[in-house]
């Protein structure tokens, strides 16, 4: 057990910290969100896009990627340090985070060189914004029930169906999606991982308003939309999509800790002298135990192993449930001001609402608990309908 950072890591950390302090524009400081689905208006979205390009130009994006594809082949600790320092100064998450943390690792693991060359540069500097087309109206937690179909027509593959609850869909240039390419298949077999240009006749984006007010959230109707690439083998999309997920989730853990730690300090100020020490102290202890857990996951990855299902699911479950309870306390303390859109309500309410989404997206808390009970503790699998 040695949980200290090397002097090289510490030097890198202070370089990042100084660079961020010098370059982060004022309008991006302390955006009151913890995760990726901020309620961005157009100007904030544009500012975030420019910011990611600046970070990329400074060499602070894609640090773990091979040099050949614009990265620096560094160990994951460097990525974590950039995330931590960004969170510490209050900078928002990278605007293209779905592409950076899901698609890019997938392309690096399963894509062709041609695909990497075509897509990775635009992901890195946010020149091309990506959205993730996984969920469907009848395939949410049960993702493998997805029905969007892909059929071969002439030389191309065309897809038809509906994707929904798609973050950034209204602003994205491209989508990576899971579609059913083998019409006779069921469940996780017969699915392909495909890339689709959003700017084409077969793609219709219907914006969805939501509690957090994000204007990029949408339903996407695909009607013979043309697929530009298939990543990995056709029909092998489920495996392609899931192999890199645990890695990325574990890596985001520490950044989430830093963002939530700032929230905990704010919560202490909000609740000061209101007799809530016991509640806030217990929350603080839980968050610090979570920090230790994320250091443990990081050490697993740095030792060259994939983080376990247990680590990835526990990480997601702990931080999202903590976020929800901490913001519950804040709104309870504020009384009517908490539901107002002015004063301290303007600060806490969007955060409170975003926390409601955090326990749902990327696998609900209930799905995470099922995974832990079945795959880690060996309980019998759910009875499944036909």
């Amino acid at each position, binding site marked *: *057990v040695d949980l200290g950072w090397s002097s090289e890591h510490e030097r890198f950390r202070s370089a990042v910290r100084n660079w961020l302090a010098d370059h982060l524009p004022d309008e991006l400081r302390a955006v009151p969100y913890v995760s990726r689905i901020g309620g961005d208006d157009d100007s904030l979205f544009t500012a975030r896009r420019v910011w990611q390009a600046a970070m990329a130009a400074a060499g602070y994006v894609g640090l773990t990627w091979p040099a050949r594809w614009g990265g620096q082949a560094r160990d994951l600790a460097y990525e974590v340090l950039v995330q931590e320092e960004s969170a510490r100064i209050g900078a928002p998450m990278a605007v293209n985070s779905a592409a950076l943390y899901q698609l890019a690792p997938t392309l690096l693991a399963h894509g062709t060189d041609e695909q990497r060359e075509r897509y990775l540069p635009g992901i890195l500097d946010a020149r091309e914004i990506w959205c993730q087309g996984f969920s469907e109206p009848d395939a949410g937690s049960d993702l493998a029930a997805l029905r969007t179909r892909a059929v071969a027509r002439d030389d191309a593959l065309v897809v038809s169906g509906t994707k929904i609850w798609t973050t950034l869909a209204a602003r994205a240039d491209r989508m990576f999606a899971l579609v059913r390419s083998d019409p006779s298949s069921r469940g996780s077999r017969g699915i392909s991982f495909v890339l689709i240009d959003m700017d084409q006749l077969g793609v219709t984006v219907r914006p969805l308003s939501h509690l957090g007010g994000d204007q990029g959230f949408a339903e996407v109707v695909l009607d013979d939309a043309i697929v530009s690439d298939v990543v990995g083998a056709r029909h092998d999309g489920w495996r392609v999509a899931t192999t890199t997920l645990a890695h990325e989730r574990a890596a985001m853990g520490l950044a989430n800790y830093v963002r939530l730690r700032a929230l905990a300090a704010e919560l202490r100020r909000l609740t000061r002298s209101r007799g809530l020490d016991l509640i806030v102290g217990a929350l603080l202890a839980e968050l610090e135990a*979570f920090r230790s857990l994320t250091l443990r996951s990081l050490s*697993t990855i*740095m030792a060259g192993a994939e983080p376990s299902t247990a680590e990835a699911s526990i990480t997601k*479950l702990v931080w999202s449930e903590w976020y929800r309870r901490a913001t519950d306390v804040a709104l309870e303390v504020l009384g009517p001001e908490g539901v107002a859109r002015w004063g301290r309500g303007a600060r806490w309410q969007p955060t409170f609402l975003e926390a409601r989404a955090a326990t749902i997206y990327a696998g609900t808390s209930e799905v995470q608990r099922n995974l832990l009970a079945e795959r*880690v503790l060996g309980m*019998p699998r759910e009875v499944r309908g036909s």
Partner: protein
Amino acid sequence: VRFALSSDQEALRDAARDLLGAEVDAARLRGIAAGHSGVDDELWRRAREQGWLGLAVDPARGGLGLGTVAQAVVAEALGHACGAIPFTATAGWALPALEAAGADCEVGDVLSRGLRVVVGSDHGLVADARGAHAFLLIVGGDARWYVGDAVEVLPRVSLDRTRRLAEVRACAAGTLVGPAALAEAAHEIERVLRGAELVGGMQRLLDLTVDYARHRVQFGRPIGSFQAIKHKLADMLVRVECARSVVYHAAWAREADAPDARYLAAVVATYCAAAARFVAGEALQVHGATGYTWESDVHFWYERTLTDAALLGSTPEEIRRLLSLDPLASGFVP
């Protein structure tokens, strides 16, 4: 950043597991529970042979010179087995306090004679006092050393009959070891090791409950196939793993003398006590009526866990102490 145990620490863990697996079983625990002192003399003898008492003591004073992580490894194994010996009190509190005070004579006595030492306040409640050979007591502003009859031990009936409480009263002046602050400083190590014992105990409760949920059939299915049970088990697992993470983090911080070592020890106290109460409560609930009876073995770990949690923290005083050590207490300034 390396969380994994070193190969030496792994060897220590495996040896501890083997020894405890061979020594301690339910019949043994029943015997201890029915016995005079509630302390396992034979296990204490084996612990001495293994060198567990002096794991973290300076080699110049007869110890092995290992650190808090090695001690935590042993404490976790003890908690898993429900071992009935005051390892944490002796090795994690009394010995570090005596070493810090330069009380070489007393340190030598503890190691060479295998003294069981407990720590507490004069007129306070202390665990495992009945079987103790020596006492480090806070009397006024001093930490004082007492051997044998110099302390009156008044047993107080308590929940866990393998970790009993007693009131201790000094009946002589004892030997001055140093200021009470010395014992307070060493208390930080005790918190971490008590947390490690709880991690072992929580893991055992989870193991027992998982096994029960897999085999207990109701409504024609193992109860572990129902989500209501699955989600309880998952929530138990989350707490076991978070507790294990923070205990080893705090143990490393202590031996590396990291700036947040005191804060992490306070986190261990508050987090592990609350997590352990949760895990124990859910273990009992999932076991149903069976677990409520002494026919089942769950009660050994249930009683031990509640007792250690009570000794450890999540009292209002401990939580306020944690808040006072919060490095961002003055407010987060990005």
